[in-house]
């Protein structure tokens, strides 16, 4: 138990150091730095939202198109960045594995954490700006919104823990990572609500924790305008199963990892 708490203390130190390092390397000192994490998805979501507004009109099924797109797109950019940066993450951070207390899982955890923090800040920032222009609702249920984010982030993390070691084992997987992002678009509830789907399709989508997370987020945001469909048992079950598979793969890959 003493060894465990000592180990935990060291891992927290390592994660903290990696977080700071990651911010410095990725955004530099002379840059606008951490703000860019927020600005990038916001810019993206804002533009897509604008285009949609022109194509479909400002409202759809009773809520603002911009709000709908922004609330779907920011979590999707989080997913895209997290998946993309998980590929070959052990090799790119290889020099740091010279320090024994740095573990491969720390890299994944730190990447996903940074992406998640950035996405949530972008979300908050976008909400504040758009509420001001009256095209975004004030969240009606913050608890549901946060719970939805938690489900979404936990699942993305578990996928990354599987993707990262697989990308070291096979070149093919590495190349498939960008595709996995596109596959996940229809399975993530970005552009539609489960309530708009026929019941059997909706039933099938409940197997996607991303849909459950997104539905919860949208319910937290739009309140009773949305009838949320989610299945937390399936979401947590899948997340835990993937996480376990990922942990086993990470351990195996670390044993044969060759660093140059």
């Amino acid at each position: 138990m003493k060894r465990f708490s000592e180990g935990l203390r060291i891992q927290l130190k390592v994660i903290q150091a990696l977080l700071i390092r990651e911010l410095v390397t990725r955004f530099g000192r002379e840059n606008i730095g951490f703000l860019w994490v927020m600005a990038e998805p916001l810019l993206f979501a804002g533009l897509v939202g604008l285009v949609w507004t022109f194509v479909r009109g400002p409202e759809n099924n009773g809520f603002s198109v911009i709000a709908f797109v922004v609330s779907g797109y920011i979590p999707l950019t989080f997913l895209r960045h997290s998946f993309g940066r998980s590929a070959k993450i052990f090799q790119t951070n290889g020099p740091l594995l010279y320090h024994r207390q740095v573990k491969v899982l720390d890299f994944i955890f730190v990447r996903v954490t940074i992406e998640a923090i950035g996405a949530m800040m972008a979300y908050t920032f976008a909400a504040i700006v758009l509420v001001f222009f009256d095209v975004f609702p004030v969240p009606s249920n913050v608890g549901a919104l946060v719970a939805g984010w938690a489900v979404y982030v936990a699942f993305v993390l578990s996928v990354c823990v599987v993707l990262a070691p697989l990308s070291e084992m096979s070149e093919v997987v590495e190349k498939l990572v960008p595709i996995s992002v596109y596959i996940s678009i229809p399975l993530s509830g970005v552009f539609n609500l489960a309530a708009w789907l026929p019941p059997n399709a909706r039933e099938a989508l409940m197997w996607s924790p991303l849909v459950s997370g997104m539905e919860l987020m949208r319910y937290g945001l739009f309140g009773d305008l949305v009838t949320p469909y989610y299945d937390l048992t399936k979401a947590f079950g899948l997340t835990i199963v993937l996480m376990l598979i990922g942990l086993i793969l990470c351990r195996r890959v670390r044993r044969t990892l060759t660093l140059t």
Partner: protein
Amino acid sequence: MPTRAADIDVDMIYCRNIYKNYRTGKIDKAVLRGVEFTINPRDRIGLLGRNGAGKSTLIRLIGGVEMPTAGRVVRKMSCSWPLGFTGGFQGSLTGYDNARFIARIYDKPYSEMRAFVEDFTELGSQLHMPVKLYSSGMRARLAFALSLAIEFECYLIDEVIMVGDQNFQQKCREQFFEKREDRALLLASHSLSTVQKYCNKAVVLNDGIATLYEDVGEAISIYEAL
């Protein structure tokens, strides 16, 4: 295999029957086949072997950078990361940022480390440059400074001591042989004079097997005959 009580009480590093294979495609190359030796406190061990004999591999395994295919490395004293031409640093970060990172993960106060690094490396304003722009000599200075500031009980050195200039070699001698006599050292090198000068024991690595010699001269003559 159960760990014997004697292994646990003593400060040392013990390589127990280490095997290491590297696989590229279908070819499986056995680099180490049953390496067994012990590093005790105050040991200054030279590691000799021809190119490709597995010196760097062995050092990486002892440092925990890579894992053995079979066997175990038992570490009962604190042990540096392998100080060599690569590894340990984030190239895009400056010398100072790397120092700060290493201070954080080894739980050392940064101010002390910074002072020591500035004094030992004599790199001056170059510490504000990304490490990827450093020459191998500059990298060696930084790596040594950081690991000396952390105060390990055993230092793993892969070749790199020879890239330094006179001034650096002089500093290393001071730090390792005057101030830190009680530490252990494992030094992989092709420079027989360096091994003769620094070491009191030597390991010859040949055909994946390590043989420890108490007499450095004997080890050198065996190595030369390979």
